């Protein structure tokens, strides 16, 4: 057992932290107000290899594995939850293609993302819900093409050019598969962005797919591998979410700890009050626990050949970390009192970001059914 970052991972952590503090922190408010990750930031992330941490080097990725990914994303999300989601979805798209894509698909879409200007999306959720059993989007075979029709809801990064992995039902067989759609192709359009409570900055909208012609070669995996692809996507997304909200916990921890030392009450810092100290200890313990689970899922992702097997562990990690983040935000907010509610305080953003975690990428309720199914099978 080894619970220590390698020197390389420590340096990845530092690179992500320095970049976030130098180039993201000063414009967090702008990112939130404009609900957009600025182009300079995207380019900065790409240049430093932070955009495509786990993608293999031969496709232009950093080749840092998922251990490197969770360590790096934690530091980015510590400064901005929006940037966190943005980067996480890039990972989700590239990983889905990396696991089930053909060599040609990988060459085109991974390289186009890591070295070109593409930003991937993954579209699963629909107005009816995120459960694959409810999918209504269809793909109908038509010669060398599939014709895709449907509406996708709450999809991230839809405003950027690049591949979108769309999960759809085969109109003839009813089997679910992933199809790579080039965003902004004919028949692709998006709604106005949703204005969400927290994790602002990551662009979120609905996607309308109307008679979108997808080359047959853009289907991911073989027709009967669809369920596996889906599982991989589900697992990968949860690894990303865990790292984002681990960063959120760390941010709350820093803020509350520092505030407790600065805020003077009745002539002494509030850190002298037993109850405040206990709160800080609670936060610290929760951070450590969340960190162990998150780093472990990174390790498992690097050391599990069949990524579909990660569904249960990644779901447990995601539930734990995102719910812990909400918990920690509440405790940290109590350390601040009213001041924490003010926008001038980072704490207010951290709190809004935290609320988002449990509701996305599979709600906790839903994910627990997934875990339970696996446990009782």
């Amino acid at each position, binding site marked *: 057992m080894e619970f220590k970052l390698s020197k390389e991972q420590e340096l990845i952590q530092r690179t992500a932290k320095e970049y976030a503090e130098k180039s993201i922190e000063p414009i967090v408010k702008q990112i939130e107000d404009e609900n957009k990750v600025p182009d300079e930031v995207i380019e900065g992330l790409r240049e430093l290899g932070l955009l495509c941490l786990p993608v293999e080097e031969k496709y232009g990725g950093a080749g840092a594995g998922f251990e490197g990914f969770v360590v790096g994303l934690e530091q980015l999300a510590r400064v901005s939850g929006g940037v966190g989601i943005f980067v996480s979805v890039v990972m989700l798209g590239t990983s889905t293609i990396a696991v089930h894509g053909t060599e040609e698909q990988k060459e085109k879409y991974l390289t186009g993302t890591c070295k070109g200007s593409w930003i991937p999306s993954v579209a699963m959720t629909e107005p009816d819900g995120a459960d694959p059993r409810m999918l209504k989007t269809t793909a109908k075979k038509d010669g060398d093409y599939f014709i895709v029709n449907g509406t996708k809801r709450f999809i991230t990064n839809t405003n950027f050019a690049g591949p979108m992995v769309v999960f759809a039902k085969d109109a003839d067989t009813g089997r679910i598969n992933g199809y790579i759609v080039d965003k902004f192709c004919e028949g692709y359009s998006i709604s106005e962005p949703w204005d969400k409570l927290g994790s602002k900055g990551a662009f979120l909208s609905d996607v309308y797919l109307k008679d979108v012609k997808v080359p047959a070669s853009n289907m991911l995996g073989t027709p009967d591998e669809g369920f596996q692809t889906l599982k991989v996507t589900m697992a990968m997304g949860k690894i990303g979410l865990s790292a984002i909200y681990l960063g959120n916990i760390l941010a709350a921890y820093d803020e509350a700890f520092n*505030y407790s030392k*600065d*805020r*003077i009450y009745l*002539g002494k810092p509030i850190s002298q009050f037993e109850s405040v100290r206990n709160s800080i200890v609670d936060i610290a313990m929760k951070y450590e626990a969340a960190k162990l689970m998150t780093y472990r899922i990174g390790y498992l992702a690097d050391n599990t050949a069949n990524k579909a097997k990660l569904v249960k562990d990644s779901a447990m990690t995601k539930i734990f970390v995102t719910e812990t983040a909400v918990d920690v935000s509440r405790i940290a907010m109590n350390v601040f009192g009213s*001041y924490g509610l003010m926008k*001038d*305080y980072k704490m207010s953003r951290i709190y809004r970001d935290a609320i988002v975690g449990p509701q996305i990428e599979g709600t906790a309720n839903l994910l627990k059914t997934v875990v339970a199914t696996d446990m009782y099978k």
Partner: protein
Amino acid sequence: MAGIMIYSDKDELSFELLSGAKLISGHTGLPINAVCINNSEQAQGLAARGAETYLINNEAINLADSQGMASALESAAIQLDANIILLSSNRRGKELSGRLAEKLAAGCLTDVGSIKVNLDKIECMRNSLGGAVLAAQMITSDYKIIAVEPRVFEEMAVGKEGPINNLKIEAQAAELEVLEQRAKVGDTANIESANILVAVGQGLKSENDMLIIKELAEALGAEIACSKPVATDKKWLPEERIIGLSGKKCKPDLAVILGISGQVQFTVGIRDARTIVAVNTDENALIMQMADYIMVADLHDLVPEMTRALLVKKRLNGVRL
């Protein structure tokens, strides 16, 4: 072999070193020799302060060339039989001290912030670990080179006249060539990088009173900063000058805080100041708890008084503030 030798390229720093040498000499009885290189005015200044002064006049020695300068001082130390060498820890002095130390196989301490002599042992205090700790250190080699920070010692006062001797030092022409010297362009207003800040808060009665604040800042060589309401509500100063959570985090050597209550949103921006002076009519204001110097007073009275006191001292000493 024993004696103290002092040298600085700057006149006033050499006068300060003279006080330092006096301290060491007082405990050890060692003689003091002050060395000047191509600077007879400094030699006169040192002599006027009672120093046994040695003037080296040799145009081949170039102030900008640490190699030649170190050679000259090495020869001087040998000729004057000095083993304790005090230099100033300004930039030139620090460059010189390393090079000279290597020539003399000496231990060397730079940025020395205070000196204590214990019998014949010279203990030097200096910051270490990036300022996190203060170390007391002592040089054990025969030759000892100590570079003292500016302002550690008072300049030696003018007194009994000392002699000026000429010291002959051979030197080779410097390999280094000085192409140009130019004055530094003044820093633009930036409260984050200012060494001294005068911060004003809602205790100030009217915008007109800003004049007395400006006068004080000028006398101190300080930048003016403020609490948030002074900029955002009163609009007496631009928002770039706000200290605190919504403003800038500053760590000046000195912060003079006038009429500011000291809410945490303000203090997070100034808590790292080295020295804090708080002036407030309310002796229980929070700001008083984090001050080094506390003054319960109306700032409208205190500020002009302080400016006056500064100007008087300046005139008395005849040196720039």
